[in-house]
C-alpha cells in the first residue's frame, strides 16, 4: 500500500487538475452559449444562401461564368487544390481537432498539389510539425468569427482562383448537428458545381428560366463572392460552436473522472491512515507488555 504522503501528494495534484478542468468547463459553457446564439442567428442565412444558390443553378443549367469553370484543360497532376481547414486555437477539446485534421489529411492524399490554409492555432502547429507546407500569411483565429474575417478569407480565395494559382477550393469544417453530434464536413467552395448542391425545392410549376438583371455576368460577379463569404462565415460559426461544445463535454467528463479518482484516493488514504494508527497502537501495546 502506498504511503500516506504519496497518496496525499497524488490527491493534491488531482485536485489542482480538477480546478483547471472545471474552470475550462465553465468558460467553454459560457462561450458556447454565446456561440450558439450566433449560430442560431446565422443559420437561416447560411441555409437560405445554399438553397437560393441551388435553386438558381437548378433553373439556369448552362451558366457560363468564370466561377463555374472547372478547368478541364488543366491535367490532374498539375491541378492545385486549396483547402481551408478550420481547427480550434487550443487543444483539450476531445476529438474535435483530431477529426478535422484526419479528414483534411485523407482529402489531401487524393490531390496532387495542395495548398493549405489553416484557421486556428492547433491545426497550424500540427501541419507545421508534420512538415506540411501551409500558407504562412494566412493567419486567422477561430475565435469569435466575424463577417469581416470571412470576407477577407473569401476575397483571398477568389483572387487565387481567378489568377489561376488555385483550381479548386475546399472548405473543411465541423458542423454541429445537435449538442451530442458533430460532423466533420468537406465542402466544395470553388468552382461552383451544381451537382454538390442538394435540391431544396422540388417545385415543378416554375420550370421557366430565371432571368438575370442586368446580366448573368453582373449578377454572378456579385452573387458568388457573397455566397463564398456567407459560406465561410457559416463554417466558421459552426466550427467555433462545435469546438466549444466538444471542449465542454471533454472537460465535463475529465472533471467527473477527477472527482471519481479523488474519491477512491480518499478511500485508500483513510485506509492507510487507519492502518498507521492500528500499527502504532499495536506497537505501543506491544512495548508496554514487554516492559511489564
Amino acid at each position: 500500500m502506498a504511503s500516506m504522503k504519496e497518496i496525499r501528494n497524488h490527491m493534491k495534484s488531482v485536485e489542482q487538475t480538477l480546478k483547471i478542468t472545471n474552470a475550462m468547463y465553465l468558460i467553454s459553457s459560457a462561450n458556447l452559449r454565446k456561440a450558439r446564439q450566433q449560430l442560431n442567428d446565422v443559420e437561416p442565412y447560411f441555409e437560405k444562401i445554399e438553397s437560393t444558390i441551388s435553386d438558381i443553378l437548378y433553373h439556369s443549367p448552362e451558366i457560363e461564368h468564370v466561377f463555374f469553370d472547372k478547368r478541364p484543360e488543366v491535367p490532374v497532376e498539375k491541378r492545385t487544390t486549396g483547402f481551408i481547414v478550420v481547427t480550434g486555437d487550443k487543444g483539450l477539446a476531445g476529438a474535435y481537432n483530431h477529426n478535422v485534421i484526419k479528414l483534411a489529411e485523407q482529402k489531401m492524399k487524393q490531390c496532387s498539389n495542395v495548398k493549405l490554409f489553416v484557421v486556428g492555432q492547433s491545426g497550424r502547429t500540427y501541419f507545421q510539425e508534420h512538415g506540411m507546407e501551409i500558407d504562412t500569411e494566412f493567419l486567422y483565429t477561430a475565435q469569435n468569427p466575424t463577417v469581416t474575417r470571412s470576407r477577407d478569407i473569401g476575397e483571398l480565395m477568389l483572387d487565387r482562383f481567378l489568377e489561376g494559382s488555385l483550381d479548386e477550393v475546399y472548405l473543411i469544417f465541423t458542423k454541429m448537428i445537435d449538442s451530442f453530434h458533430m460532423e466533420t464536413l468537406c465542402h466544395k467552395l470553388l468552382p461552383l458545381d451544381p451537382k454538390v448542391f442538394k435540391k431544396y425545392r422540388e417545385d415543378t410549376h416554375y420550370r421557366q428560366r430565371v432571368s438575370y438583371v442586368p446580366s448573368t455576368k453582373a449578377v454572378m460577379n456579385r452573387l458568388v463572392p457573397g455566397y463564398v463569404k456567407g459560406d465561410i462565415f457559416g463554417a466558421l460559426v459552426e466550427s467555433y460552436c462545435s469546438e466549444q461544445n466538444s471542449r465542454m463535454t471533454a472537460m465535463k467528463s475529465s472533471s467527473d473522472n477527477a472527482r471519481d479518482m479523488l474519491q477512491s484516493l480518499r478511500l485508500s488514504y483513510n485506509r492507510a491512515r487507519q492502518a498507521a494508527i492500528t500499527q502504532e497502537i499495536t506497537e505501543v501495546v506491544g512495548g508496554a507488555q514487554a516492559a511489564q
Partner: protein
Amino acid sequence: MDNPKHFYLEIITPTKQFYTGPAQALILPAVDGQMGVYANHEPVVTAIEPGQLYYQVDEDWQHVVVGAGFAEIKPDYAILLVSTAERPEEIDFNRAQEAKQRAEERLRQKQSIHEYYHSKAALARAMARLKTRK
C-alpha cells in the same frame, strides 16, 4: 397567402432574419437603379446595391436601409440576402456621418484594390444611411 396580390418576402442578414412575411410590393436598389416588384413577377435574380429599400405591407410602406447582397424573385416569393438591414430609426446620424468621413479619407489614400472596394462599399453604406436620416 390567400390574397393573390401578396407575395412572400424574406429579408435575411447574417445576424438576423430581418423580415419574413407577406408583402404587396417591394422596391429594391438594383445595380442599375431601383427595381419594383409585385406579386407574379417573372423569375429574376439580381444583385442589390447598398441603398434604400421599401416594401409595402397592409398599405403601409416600410423603409429599410440595406447593404450589398442579392435577391431571388419568383412569382410568389422574394428572398433578399443582404449584408445588413436597418430601419431608419435604428440609424445613428452622427455615426453614419463619421463613417462617411472615414471612408472618404481612406479613399484619398493609396490603397490596394480590395481596400479601395471596401472603402467604396463603406462610403455607399454611409451615404444610404445618411439619406434616410435627413
